[in-house]
């Protein structure tokens, strides 16, 4: 299982289609990918190139139609829903839209990232959520409802929610799009540090040049195909 440990994500011969009948259109063509543990991999490409589709397939958010995705040592293609649920619990997601629950406060939203692991001492969950929010600079907005937070602040709550459960893999779709320069680089710092200290692997879709510069690997997609794959020189 050494290979699984080193490469938590392995995709082979991944093809994907959208629509049905006449409108059926292939979105991904033969994607092969191995992502090294603890690395920050960035997917780039023009819109419609299939970046988000790759991300959702790797993250168990979409059924694999053809090919294989090996995630954290388990085959995802054709997996039962119990396995998918168990795998999702080990992942952290940061979506393009923040997708916070509008009826829950910032702290409660982050707690949802913890409670997915089962019953947890409320005081402990409270402290962990507050800590995660403080890390993203929202220590003074703990009990705000999403409607009372700015776009960037909401995005940072989503980041805290994704990281609070200490996931093995973080999937992020344009996580810094709504962030200013400082909070954007804070998020990247945090992701890099998690990679270094805990071996958290991150796959991210982004156009943000500040992140591209600091990525371990940049994969470029065009029309559903990988057209370039550059590894940064080891620092």
């Amino acid at each position, binding site marked *: 299982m050494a290979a699984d440990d080193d490469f938590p994500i392995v995709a082979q011969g991944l093809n994907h289609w959208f629509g049905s009948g006449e409108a059926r259109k292939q979105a991904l063509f033969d994607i092969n990918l191995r992502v090294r543990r603890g690395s920050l991999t960035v997917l780039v490409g023009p819109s419609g190139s299939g970046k988000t589709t790759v991300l*959702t397939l790797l*993250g168990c*958010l*979409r*059924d694999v139609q053809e090919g294989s995705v090996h995630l954290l040592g388990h085959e995802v293609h054709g997996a039962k*829903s*119990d396995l998918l*649920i*168990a*795998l*999702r*619990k*080990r*992942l952290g*997601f940061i*979506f393009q*839209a923040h*997708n*916070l*629950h*509008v*009826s*829950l406060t910032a702290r*409660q939203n982050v*707690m*949802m*990232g913890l*409670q*997915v692991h089962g*019953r947890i001492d*409320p005081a402990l969950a409270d402290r962990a959520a507050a800590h995660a929010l403080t890390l993203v600079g929202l220590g003074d907005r703990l009990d705000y409802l999403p409607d009372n937070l700015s776009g960037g602040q909401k995005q940072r709550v989503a980041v805290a*929610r994704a990281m609070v459960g200490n996931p093995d893999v973080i999937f992020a779709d344009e996580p810094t799009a709504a962030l200013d320069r400082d909070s954007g680089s804070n998020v990247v710092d945090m992701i890099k540090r998690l990679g270094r200290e805990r071996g958290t692997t991150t796959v991210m879709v982004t156009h943000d040049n500040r992140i591209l510069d600091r990525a371990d690997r940049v994969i470029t997609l065009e029309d559903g195909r990988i057209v370039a794959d550059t590894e940064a020189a080891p620092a």
Partner: protein
Amino acid sequence: MSRFLALLFGRLPIGWLQLTHSRTRFAAALAGVAFANVLVFVQLGIMNSMATATVKPYLFFDADIMISAPDANSMTEGGNVARQWLLQALADPEVATGTGLFIANVTWQRPTKALALTTYGVDPVQPEFLTGEIKAKSGTLQLQNAGLLDRFSRGLPRDEAAAIRPQTPLSFEASGTTLTLYDTFAGGGGFGGDGYMVVSDQTFLNLFPARTSGAPDHILLKVVPGADPDAVALRLRDLISDKTLRIRSYAAAAQEDLTYQQTKRPTGIIFGFGVIIGVLVGIVIVYQVLSTDVADHLREYATFKAMGYGQWFFLGIVFEEALILGVLGFVPGFIVATGLLTLMAKATTLPLLMTGQMAMMVFFGTVAACALSGAIATRRLAAADPADLF
């Protein structure tokens, strides 16, 4: 509330938080559930009132066995029974006494409205066959052409009814006979007539010269203490020569009448349908409320699903909401329905009552309908890929 629910569920009370997030939507949802409750309550109240009204006249009399004509599906329907069968019945050692009961409608032509009074002719020297107020006041029935009137008769002003006393009797003419009302008793309108009246068998025959003392509408019997009315009735069926007669215990007769009213008479069937339609409409309303709520939160649920929450978690949220809506919607629904039934009872003098049994049925029915609706509404979530729902 939120803290209490959090302890109860061992997780954040998401159902409560998202229901109360928008007060207007929450109020609308509660109003919907309350309305569904009112709908079912009123229909149930109407159906129950028919049962109560049907059984009511049976409570005026105290008997163990009732013998009726073969076509007497209810107390007021059917032909009469020859008195000779009463004599034959008395031959049974366990039959103690018996009496004839005459029933017909008397119309009291009043200035504003004609009252249709279901009139019972009873033997005033056998008060043991009467109950309550009628029994207590039956002495006056021995006077010629005397009557006791139902003071809750529909269309009879309360003060006018209250004025009828032995000292200040009230007379009116019906079918050529002058009747004098010496007192009143608590009856209460039914579906058949506006009210009730009790007279002696002699007075009854004065009112209806075509009837004879030898053929009452029903024969009432009392058994000796300790005897089983059902067993005696069974024996009488052998003993009495006319095999077509309906001979059954008094309780069974009341039950037969009720079943007949509910399943064979158009009113009973319509009321039954009213309940079914009420329940169906109620379920549709509750389903709309719950499925709209699930649809409104689909994006958020999809996010939770992406995070690794399973189907049970979503069912838990929906059941939590179902319980909250069921309980909080029931309270206003119950209050409004009780008020409506009281108003309707006043207007119709029908026994339209809110009963504990109705309340339990509607309450648990509502919570179950809410839970089921929510469970159906979350199925869409179970089938979809989280990525398709964002």
